[in-house]
């Protein structure tokens, strides 16, 4: 059986830049930072006091207190973004989506906030006072299950936890599911709401986080000489993937084709990228091959671009290896400079950013890139968006564990 072509017919998001696709895009192209001092908990004893938080969202107001209190915040954000995406795809008119719809969701650390709360209660009040909902809130597949229940998704459900590559892997595996004829529609994407005192402390212990507490909005500076680590972010982004045939038969608006997916593993070190980004190179090559294009066809790369010294240097090297002489021509940017690192929700967000870049013929900038690192010498679209007609965009995501996931989107 020949593979079916897969299209994107819906987008939904809630993230540090906005609680819908339109606001998010506007802020992305205007170079607005969604990063600020943390407001959701006391940071006075922490080495890092800022992050990209979702703003102006009250779960009790959105879904009612009785329902909201059963879910971790990552579940709230997942349901919200899914509802937006289904509306956008005009699939919100049915009571249950049924057995021809699957769900593939990514998350890095699931309901880590619920884990911390439960352990705290256990220590302070003993085992008989631990929240009976703790397990169903903290399990990494909690969002997947809750979204499936809410919208009646009865096809296959998969939760992917490949750290910061999780939702890129999710989108890729969803593509495979449709290509192979398993279902016609997949609700995919990912969520992370893991900014907690413990995770901040632990990421800071491995020197992964920027410590520019005095200047949160300018702390995340991918590819800049003075970059000093990533910035935690939270959010959920959901894409509706669909077979081209299914989308056309119901006259759905098509954002873009998703034509390429490459997934590899460094098998090298649990946090450090392989020398020269070897695993990333193979993932990009596989995605390009899968899309049936050549490296020179790529107009825009939404980089992983975390703002850590190691990632940005190795990713630059990897892009040069894959694109050869074309590397100096290709337009690259890191939207993490504005959102912070959405961890398991990053790949889905950046898929959305790539798709919207194609749609609007505009590349969002890498903000805070003022003093380029000589080892990062490509065109990262510093500080201002650029107009660019994009036929093909590639999105890179790499995760702790050595996971690499690359997606290729094409103009429809």
């Amino acid at each position, binding site marked *: 059986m020949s593979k079916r072509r897969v299209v994107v017919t819906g987008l939904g998001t809630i993230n540090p830049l906005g609680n819908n696709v339109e606001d998010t895009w506007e802020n992305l192209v205007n170079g607005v930072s969604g990063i600020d001092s943390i407001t959701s908990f006391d940071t006075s004893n922490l080495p890092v006091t800022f992050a990209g938080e979702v703003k102006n969202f009250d779960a*009790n107001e959105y879904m*009612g*207190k*009785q*329902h*909201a*209190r*059963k879910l971790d915040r990552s579940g709230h954000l997942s349901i919200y973004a899914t509802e937006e995406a289904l509306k956008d795809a005009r699939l919100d008119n049915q009571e249950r989506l049924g057995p021809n719809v699957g769900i593939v969701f990514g998350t890095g650390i699931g309901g880590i906030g619920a884990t911390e709360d439960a352990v705290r209660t256990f220590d302070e009040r003993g085992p*008989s*006072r631990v*929240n*009976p*909902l703790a397990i*169903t809130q903290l399990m990494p597949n909690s969002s997947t299950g809750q979204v499936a229940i809410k919208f009646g998704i009865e096809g296959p459900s998969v939760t992917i936890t490949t750290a910061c590559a999780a939702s890129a892997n999710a989108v890729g595996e969803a593509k495979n599911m449709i290509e192979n004829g398993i279902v016609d529609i997949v609700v995919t994407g990912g969520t992370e709401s893991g900014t907690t005192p413990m995770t901040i402390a632990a990421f800071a212990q491995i020197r992964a986080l920027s410590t520019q507490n005095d200047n949160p909005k300018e702390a995340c500076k991918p590819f800049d000489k003075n970059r000093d680590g990533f910035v935690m972010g939270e959010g959920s982004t959901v894409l509706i993937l669909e077979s081209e045939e299914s989308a056309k038969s119901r006259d759905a608006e098509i954002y873009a084709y998703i034509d390429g997916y490459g997934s590899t593993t460094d098998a090298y070190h649990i946090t450090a990228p392989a020398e020269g980004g070897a695993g990333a190179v193979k993932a990009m090559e596989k995605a390009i091959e899968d899309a049936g294009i050549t490296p020179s066809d790529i107009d825009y790369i939404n980089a992983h671009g975390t703002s850590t010294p190691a990632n940005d240097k190795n990713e630059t090297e990897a892009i040069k290896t894959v694109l050869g002489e074309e590397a100096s021509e290709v337009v690259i940017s890191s939207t993490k400079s504005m959102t912070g690192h959405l961890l398991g929700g990053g790949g889905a967000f950046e898929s959305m950013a790539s798709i919207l870049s194609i749609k609007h013929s505009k590349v969002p900038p890498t903000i805070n890139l003022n003093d380029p690192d000589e080892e990062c010498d490509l065109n990262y679209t510093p500080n201002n968006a650029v107009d660019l007609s994009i036929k093909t965009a590639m999105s890179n995501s790499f995760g702790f564990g050595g996971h690499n996931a690359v997606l290729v989107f094409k103009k429809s």
Partner: protein
Amino acid sequence: MEVNEVFEKVKNLFVEELGIDAEKVTMEAKLEEDLEIDSLGIVEVVMAFEDEFGIEIDDEELTDVGTVSQAVNLLHSKL
């Protein structure tokens, strides 16, 4: 404590702690069907009752509790 006082405390717990709509909480209301308190939720309810009334409730005592009035009567008998 009078039965109606126990009911008021139970109602208050349901509304304030569990976020259930106040008008739904009547003596006749069924915990699962009317108040959407499922098998996971009932454990929370028991914890809230134990903390509020300073009592202990065994799982076996809950076997026959399906409505607000049955819960109120159980609590009243233990006070």
